């Protein structure tokens, strides 16, 4: 869907802000550009809608070189969300949301219907907010409006530059969940800049981990956590990469691989947990000593068994030691 081919960017001629970047993004994926500030991730993102020029190489969307397209038309087909939401203070919410449809010359009725649709998507009452101005809304609401504004003309591609970076943690998490929910419906191809590893693990289908304008590793969050390609990557994702990785796995997956333990009927103090709970939260629950036993239920409330720290430990061993070893064996056989 989007291909980066030997993309480079230099400002002064010698120093490269982005250096020979190559990768492909599949349709409907969220790809997160992750890295410390100054690593070139924002520059790379802004090259896609040509807010930054490309010094060398090319970016293709659906096999079409963006350098050959009219930049105004290109930008109108790409949703754009920035950290400070960029809502225009002189326009009310409806005008803000429908700005791209307005630029594209949609008629009034079509614009209004689209506005109502989008507001329902984020659970805000279209009529109540219609005539309000951005500064009358909370930070979280403003950012949601910023997101639906980018969705307004139904662009196939969205660029998001640290869209949730300015929000406080509680609201950020809520909006991230809400956004993933929306993404499941709209299935956009999304390029997303972040410096927050947890955000990337949670939101991304694939992560592009960058340093000094170069890609250090490109892969799924799980891939990066289990096989960090080099010292820099493992340092960036942190020593707790195994624990982080658990947030990507559920009890159901553990159950499938190694099974649960039997319930000890003699223990009275026990806690219930759903089988779709992720392993990180489950482990946290076990470590918190909230109960002597954690009993796992499925969606029909049928008891599946119990889970212990030991089980999680065994599962991790399997995922991080045995499986990669098996994969290496297989590769050797093929060779």
């Amino acid at each position, binding site marked *: 869907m989007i291909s980066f081919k030997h993309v480079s960017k230099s400002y002064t001629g010698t120093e490269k802000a982005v250096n020979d970047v190559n990768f492909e993004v599949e349709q409907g994926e969220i790809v997160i550009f992750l890295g410390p500030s100054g690593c070139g991730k924002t520059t790379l993102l802004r090259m896609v809608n040509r807010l930054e020029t490309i010094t060398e190489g090319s970016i293709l969307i659906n096999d079409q070189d963006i350098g050959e397209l009219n930049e105004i038309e290109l*930008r109108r087909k790409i949703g*754009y969300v*920035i950290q*400070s939401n*960029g809502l225009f203070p*002189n326009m009310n919410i409806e005008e803000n949301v429908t700005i*791209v449809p307005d630029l594209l010359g949609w008629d009034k009725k079509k614009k209004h219907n689209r506005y109502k649709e989008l507001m329902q998507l984020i659970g805000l009452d279209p009529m109540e907010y219609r005539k309000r101005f951005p*500064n009358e809304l909370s930070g979280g609401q403003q950012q949601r409006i910023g997101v639906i504004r980018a969705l307004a003309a139904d662009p196939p591609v969205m660029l998001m530059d640290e869209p949730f970076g300015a929000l406080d943690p509680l609201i950020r998490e809520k909006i991230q969940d809400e956004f993933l929910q929306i993404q499941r419906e709209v299935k956009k191809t999304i390029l997303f800049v972040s410096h927050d590893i947890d955000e990337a693990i949670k939101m991304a289908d694939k992560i592009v981990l960058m340093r000094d304008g170069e890609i250090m590793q490109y892969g799924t969050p799980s891939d990066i956590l289990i096989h960090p390609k080099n010292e820099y990557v493992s340092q960036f994702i942190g020593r707790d990469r195994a624990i982080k990785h658990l947030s990507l796995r559920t009890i159901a997956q553990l159950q499938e691989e190694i099974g649960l333990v039997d319930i000890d009927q003699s223990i009275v103090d026990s806690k219930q947990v759903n089988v779709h709970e992720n392993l990180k939260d489950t482990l946290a629950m076990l470590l918190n000593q909230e109960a002597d036993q954690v009993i796992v239920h499925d969606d029909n409330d049928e008891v599946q068994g119990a889970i212990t720290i030991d089980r999680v430990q065994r599962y991790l061993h399997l995922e991080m030691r045995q499986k990669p070893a098996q994969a290496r064996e297989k590769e050797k056989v093929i060779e």
Partner: protein
Amino acid sequence: MNRKKIIAIIVRILLYAFVIGFFVYAGVNGYFSPIFEQSDTFWVLVGQHLNLVIISSFLAIAIALPLAVLFTRPRFRKFEWIASNVANLAQTVPSLAVLALAIGILGVGFKPAVFALFIYSVLPIFRNAVAGFNSINPDLIDAGKGMGMKAGQIFWRVEVPNAAYAIIGGLRTAVVLNIGTAALAYYIGGGGLGVWIMTGIELFDNAYLISGAIPVTLMAIGFDYLLRGVGYVISPKSTRQTADTATTT
């Protein structure tokens, strides 16, 4: 907050009481008599005064606003300080000196008076407009660009509306200043209500002095309120607060 409000209201009431008291005092002593006894002359002078102010202000707007727009474009922003300094310099020259200099170029009469007032109004209009455009968050322009707005669309739909309140603020300052300074036009034969004010001063005649000065004051207050109203109408309420802080800093 509430205390401040109460104090503000008290000060305002005292001020109004003082003004009304002054009008009563002036009326009782017959200080407004020239306005009624020579009403033909009075209206001629008012007309001249308004002409001086309106023509010079329009000229100043015509010059200062395009300059402000030019010097806030990214390409020319680095030259903005030169323009600001030139305009600042023009402002530091005393008004009488500007009038005297204007005589040297344009002779005596209406024209040099308009010219001098024009020179005087350029700075506040220019400076406020520059402040207004500069106060716009660069992220807004970035967002506009990223969504596919053309340069003209960004200018008219984002920059101008968000800078409007500050621009009108500059106009208010310039016009009010102008109305007062226009009284000096009398010295170079430019006419206006300054004729009665200066006559009053020279003859120690309170009647002429007040009949000239009070209309000038009312004119200044009137224009101030008028332009403030215009500002409120043309700038959306959400942009006012930011514009206010931009002009006061």
